[in-house]
């Protein structure tokens, strides 16, 4: 084993151990929450509820998981606003593209006879 494995690395003066320890508890709680939500999603699809209700809840839970990982695991809440704006711009364009494509390419807007002929 090299010496480097046993010697603690030099830490920068601005490193705040207490804030890192607080983050640890946040990460543990978040991981447990995400696992629980995944379990709820799994059970939800087998329940005899209204399909629209189930779909809405699934999408809401998925969006919550998505933004929870971005906010805490990806440190966006602790970082500069610029990074949120940069990612938000890309995400907004992506969501806009998905919505536009879904609207334009809905079965009522597609000419299936033209596709068959092609």
């Amino acid at each position, binding site marked *: 084993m*090299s*010496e*480097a*494995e046993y010697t*603690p*690395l*030099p*830490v*920068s003066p601005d*490193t705040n*151990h207490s804030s*890192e320890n607080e*983050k*640890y508890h946040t*990460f*543990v709680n*978040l*991981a447990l929450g*995400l*696992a629980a939500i*995944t379990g709820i*999603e*799994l059970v939800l*699809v*087998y329940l*005899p509820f209204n*399909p629209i209700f*189930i*779909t809405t809840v*699934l*999408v809401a*839970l*998925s969006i919550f998981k*998505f933004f929870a*990982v*971005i906010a*805490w*695991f*990806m440190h966006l809440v602790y*970082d*500069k606003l*610029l*990074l949120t704006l*940069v*990612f*938000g*711009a*890309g*995400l907004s*364009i*992506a*969501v806009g*593209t*998905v919505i536009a*494509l*879904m609207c334009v*390419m809905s*079965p009522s807007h*597609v000419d*299936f006879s033209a596709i068959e002929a092609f």
Partner: protein
Amino acid sequence: MSDSATASHDNGHHSLIENNKKLLMWLFLGSDCMFFGTLISTHLIYRKLYPDANNPLEFFDLELTSFSTFILLMSSFLMALAVSAMHKGQIKSFRRNVIGVIFFGLIFLGCQVYEFTHFVHAGLTISTNTFGSTFFVMTGTHGCHVAIGVFWLICMYFYSHTGKMDAHESAVDVEVAGLYWHFVDIVWIVIFTAVYLIEYIPGK
């Protein structure tokens, strides 16, 4: 230039590089969002246009996919701990967590290979129909991202044994790798709901 002025200039230079590394990664992730957005929407559109192309429930194994999802979520948790350990200068803790992330990443890839093999044996390939094409391209692209992430972390793990890492500069490199890994996780969160779970809703 005095020593203190030189040191201040160096610190400012390093800080700028660190900020730029993170900014570039976030820019890349923003663009990757658009990439996966189009892949997922293409799958959903063709699923709606040709609902009879395949019955996905004949192929899907929700228990396996849920297990993969859980594994990826836990790998994200370990990655967050690895980044935190690096910020505190705890290299041994960093290595332990990264090994965990690599292990979970490999399990996820193994599950995906098993799933793809099962699909092919059941008669669904990338050229069978629109469902097969969009499904394999979308999940395959995600799998490639996971494989790249695993390779990146393996390189980082071995680099940590060279003794060249220091908590201040390398923490940003680990954080950037972590951002990539978490992104792979959030893409799967969307795919899991939009592609797998939705199919199981009764009477949809």
